[in-house]
């Protein structure tokens, strides 16, 4: 393996192709920050959440029973707090100092930050299940002045609720499995190093 590696290194030495211009381009305008892109998506999501939150806040007076008010408070909590936590988590990963730390420290810091972000997203998936009912209650009242929890529903309304539940369950299960796998691999790295 070592001989093969040396031969490859030798051949790579002979086919150097970077020019001064390419190198400087890489360091400046052509550089795109992957975390920045991800943060941009999350920021757009956060603005949408805040917008919906403000809409609920301005119509909060229409929620006239204790359980609808509880749904409203829960929805507002999720819409305002969760995006901030996710953006903070992303910021933590983005600001990891990789220039003054060694490989082991970076691996530890990164795994911890990644675990934190993934657990938060995992938590968000579970919250979405409760959120689905809470949001339905809140918007049924605000938009149609109907109590979602007591109103009589026809067959199609019940079917669409069942479909929505099925959809959220499938998404939650898939998301949970995916995140669990990634979190476990981050945990293994930490166990190995600590």
């Amino acid at each position, binding site marked *: 393996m*070592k001989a093969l590696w040396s031969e*490859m290194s030798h051949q790579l030495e002979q086919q150097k192709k970077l020019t001064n211009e390419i190198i400087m381009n890489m360091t400046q305008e052509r550089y795109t920050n992957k975390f920045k892109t991800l943060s941009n998506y999350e920021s757009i999501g956060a603005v949408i959440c805040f917008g919906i939150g403000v809409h609920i806040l301005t119509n909060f007076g229409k929620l006239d029973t204790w359980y609808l008010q509880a749904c409203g408070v829960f929805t507002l909590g999720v819409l305002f707090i969760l995006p901030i936590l996710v953006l903070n988590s992303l910021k933590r990963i983005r600001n990891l100092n990789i220039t003054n730390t060694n490989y082991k420290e970076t691996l530890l810091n*990164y795994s911890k930050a990644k675990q934190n972000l993934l657990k938060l997203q995992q938590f968000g998936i579970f919250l979405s299940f409760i959120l689905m009912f809470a949001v339905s209650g809140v918007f049924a009242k605000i938009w149609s002045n109907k109590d979602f929890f007591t109103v009589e529903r026809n067959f199609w309304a019940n079917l669409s609720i069942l479909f929505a539940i099925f959809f959220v369950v499938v998404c939650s299960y898939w998301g949970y499995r995916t995140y669990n796998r990634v979190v476990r691999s981050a945990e293994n790295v930490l166990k190995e190093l600590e």
Partner: protein
Amino acid sequence: MPNKEEFVRIIKQHEGVIFKITTMYTDNRDDQKDLYQDVVYQLWKSFDSFRAQSKFSTWMYRISLNTALTRLKKSKRMGNTVSIDKVILEQTENYNPEFEDKLKQMYAHIKQLNVLEKGLMLLLLEGKKYEEIAEITGLTPSNVGTRISRIKQKLKQQIVKE
């Protein structure tokens, strides 16, 4: 502001190393190019902070490995991935397909290792001594030795399995 000429000269001098690291930590040509740019950018950003307390190559390995490690993939690219079909980029007169196949096999074995093991293996193949590997990774030299013998064992098993 870092010294541009000095930076360009050093990057040119070490471009093979950056190529090897980025190839080890990515699965397709697009990702490899992205990571290559990230590494060069990080080196540029931290070039001023290099205090010559350690060898330049030690510092460069550290920054490159750290960059590879903390690179967050947006998502799996769909459809337009270009697998790393060639390790040696250009078909020169000396281009040898058999050698290329062996290289691909070697990379395939190394890619099965975990991130820390990959880094250690790369440094070992680069001919670094345990002390220097320890300086780059933050492990103790004895720990480096233990881990490397485990990696060798693992690779042997992988190769025997085939």
